[in-house]
């Protein structure tokens, strides 16, 4: 399979990259890890006349702590996140989610920024970043702006990043002591994408009562969402088996479940509930509960 002919650009600064993006507009696509874009180009589902490769732009990779916030460069690879000592100790759910993406070859090249800007409805990180409540930093010709994750996923493979912007950074807030999180998914047997993936973050107080809960669901719908109905069933309560079970029943609410070869609407909705229960249960364990 051969892509349609294209011009290749490898800018060496954000400014140059933005300049190219501005000049070439609709005819250009940014290239990060390439494991979503290049297969689409080979199938000719995408035929950009220009490809702007970000891999030579310095300053876009890295995982740093900025006070309590963890700052991750947009071009940081899934492998870098999977193996990061900072993430493993301060935000393990991000490292674990990264480790579940694709396979090692994909993880060596695929990037967090590329993944979140592309927003495949079955990608894994969208659920986790929704649960964490991250912020994105986009840089454009007019400078930088911050977008909250709740405003990020607009529709099917459509996000808040502007046509003339680059997603340069993701900022992960610190969660209080007594927090725990888990991301679990039902993998597609062929592609290993999430048929349903649920990320749950909970904070428990000293009596074991839930003071904060955030649940992200990916895979079943056209975009990842926060399962607000589930969260409402957790906050303020002691998270025993019955409470988690009851809260998880709301998992499919707000998800525009798409039927396909992997499941009917009925089955995928059921999986949302099953995995919400499993993810919350595991999150509670890690938060020091039960």
């Amino acid at each position, binding site marked *: *399979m*051969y892509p*349609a*002919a294209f011009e290749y650009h490898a800018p060496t600064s954000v400014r140059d990259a933005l300049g190219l993006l501005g000049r070439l507009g609709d005819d250009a696509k940014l290239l990060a890890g390439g494991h979503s874009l290049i297969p689409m180009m080979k*199938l*000719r589902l995408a035929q950009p006349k220009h490809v702007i490769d970000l891999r030579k732009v310095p300053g876009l990779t890295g995982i740093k702590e900025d006070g309590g916030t963890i700052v991750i460069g947009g071009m940081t690879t899934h492998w870098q996140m999977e193996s990061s000592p900072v993430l493993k100790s301060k935000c393990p759910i991000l490292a674990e989610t990264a480790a579940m993406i694709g396979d090692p070859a994909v993880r060596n090249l695929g990037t967090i920024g590329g993944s979140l800007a592309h927003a495949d409805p079955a990608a894994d990180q969208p659920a986790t970043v929704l649960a964490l409540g991250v912020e994105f930093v986009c840089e454009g010709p007019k400078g930088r702006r911050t977008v909250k994750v709740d405003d990020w996923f607009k529709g099917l493979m459509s996000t808040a990043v502007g046509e003339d912007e680059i997603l340069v950074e993701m900022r992960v807030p610190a969660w209080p002591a007594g927090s725990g999180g888990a991301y679990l998914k*039902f993998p*597609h*047997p*062929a*592609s290993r994408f999430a048929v349903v993936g649920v990320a749950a973050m909970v904070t428990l107080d000293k009596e074991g009562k839930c003071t904060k809960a955030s649940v992200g669901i990916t895979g079943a719908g056209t975009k990842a969402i926060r399962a607000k109905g589930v969260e409402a069933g957790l906050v303020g309560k002691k998270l025993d088996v019955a409470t988690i079970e009851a809260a998880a029943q709301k998992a499919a609410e707000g998800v525009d479940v798409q039927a396909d*070869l*992997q*499941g*009917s609407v009925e*089955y995928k909705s*059921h*999986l949302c509930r*099953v995995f919400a229960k499993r993810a919350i249960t595991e999150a509670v364990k890690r938060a020091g509960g039960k």
Partner: protein
Amino acid sequence: MAPATAERLFGKSIKRREDPRFITGRGSYVDDLKIPGMTYAAFVRSPHAHARIRRIDTAAAKAHPGVVAVFTGSDMKGVNSLPCGWDLRKAKNVPGVVQDLAMVPHMPLTSDVARHVGDPVAVVIADSQEAATDAAEKVRVDWEPLPSVTATEKASASGAATIHADAPGNVAFKWALGDAAATDAAFKNAAVTVKKRIVNQRLVANAMEPRACVARFDPATGELTLWVTSQNPHVHRLLMCAFVLGIPEHKVRVIAPDVGGGFGSKIFLYNEEVVCSWASRQLQRPIRWTASRREAYQTDAHGRDHVTEGELALSRDGKILGLRVKTVANLGAYLSTFAPAVPTFLYGTLLNGVYTIGAIHVEVTGVFTNTTAVDAYRGAGRPEACYVVERMVDAGARALNMDVADLRRKNFIPKFAGAFQTLVAVTYDSGNYAAALDKLLQIFDYKKFRTEQAEARKQGKLLGVGFSTYIEACSIAPSKVVGALGAGAGLYESGKVRVHPTGMVTVYTGSHSHGQGHETTFAQLVADNLGIPMEQIEIVHGDTGAIPFGMGTYGSRSASVGGTAIQMSLDKIKEKGKRIAAHLLEASPKDMEYANGQFQVKGVPSKAVPFGAVALTAYIPHNYPEGLEPGLEETSFYDPSNFCFPFGAHACVVEVDADTGKVKLLRYVAVDDVGNVINPMIVDGMVHGGIAQGVGQALWEGAVYDGESGQLMTGSMMDYAMPKADMLPNYETDRTVTPTPVNPLGVKGAGETGTIAATPAVVNAVVDALAPFGVDHIETMPLTAERVWKTIQAAKARR
């Protein structure tokens, strides 16, 4: 047979000689070829499942830079249809057989109607792959979309779109075998009958290497060389020359170099190599085509796709009184090369299984649909038969509340050495079915498992075990027999052994190795026979320019049929060698024997001539027997007298996640009897790969067409779930050995047993896991998580 040497190689796990080049990237595959002046082909294919071609405008494509030519079907004058090599209408004198076949045309580039997504209608030839691909997008086809039908059971429904004018109701054939009256009587009188609908889903072969060809016409010599990913280069040559292009067979050389897997999908003569061969002669340039994986999914022959109604009649105490089978088999849009044989003579004839059955009758209707053509895929008809038998036997046991292993054992055909005449035409060669099950149960502690299962059930864990006591027919086939059934070919094999003056040996085999390891196993056979090291033996395969006519590799026939042809030539070599040695020793040829690499007077090793000295003498015949021709090479063609019938017993343990329906394989035990074994490691490898494919069918694989649009929904490995290493447990394998009397090697054949046995073993295990809910059957494969989950929900609702 084979003389005693220092170390007998037959039966040894010699490491494969072909592997070093494969695993270091030094194999020579068709796509690796670089020929000066090479051009590249890109095919224009139908995006519609069914559409009339009103007009094809190639002007823009022809004008694209780098394009050498653009051809459509109407350009290919004098070119005939791709042939179907099995004409059921010629099946004579087989009791109970009803023969019929709509022999519809299959043009290399269709020009009237496209009949499936991917059906090629034009080819662009350019000086680079990119130019060809870009120009192909500029070919303008004026399509008139037509209604399509893809579902097997809807093909003959009234109102379904007609795909071929010569096949009303889309019926390709109706076929039957067995004794209908006796079967009806058995069912009338039976205490218990069980009826099940069984869907054996369509599969994509997924050879690791996609199909490819390079066609080079040399105007200086008028010779065409075709490199192609073929399992049988002579068959490719014969079909293409004599039936399609009408060019002289002796002016065509077909070479199948290293080929990366086939599983049947590379047996057939396909559109692309025919078009490239024809076009190369027109343009007098070499032309190369390699399938993309997407094209492979749309055009490589698919496998299976049966919908069956199975019925079993039993006595109250568990004797199988009758089996009645009605199958609709989807052939796809055209008749592929072997296609009519697969759901008929390779299917119905295995329905006796390993059991004594009172009466059997099978009816098969072959139908056309707007899908990729269906033909042989690892097992080719026998997995479908084994699946029906093993599922029905399992369901029968459950209906009688009888243990699934006990019911099987109760009905086993008793051990036999010579012949067992089945009710469905074939005669089994040798069998000891109870011994295989015994061995399986030595490895797999069945009683212990049932105890563990009971404990697990108390905790809500769904464990299950499934058995598959299978038999299959391979080593195809006796030519006269298959000819009488409609085959347009013989199914013998060729083997030429050429001894060189220095005592080195080259063996030319009509078999082809595309994963089987013949370069190793055949060398083991020759080394044993001649008492010379394997390093002195070369195995040549895959070149019609070098090898006598052979039928190729499929149907697990190479060791048994190909190996025996080589054995026959080795015997002739030794006979001639004895005459030469006798002359040199002034002895009588009758007093000579061959042992330890030398021709010697019987029992007198000191009176001997070594093999190398005899070889040299044959080519420098100064001191030589009167009237004996010089040289030392022999050719043999072996036509087997019967099929061979490997058999065995497999057990599979699964755990079903009750919340999601997902099936996990916990344990897989396989006991196989493939007769004598040349290389145990290679046979184990065959079993491993076969089990992976059989499990793949049971749990994950499936080619799916959209009912409305006829689009192939599972167009690549993103949607078509292939088994991967982390989805499979380590297998436990063992063997019993019941040599076949059919060939002097005693080898039955091993390539397809795993695929045939595994599918029902897995499905039986899942049914067993769900038995507490009252489940005794799941109609359709693959057993996706959703399908299993829905089965559980439905069963719960029934209670």
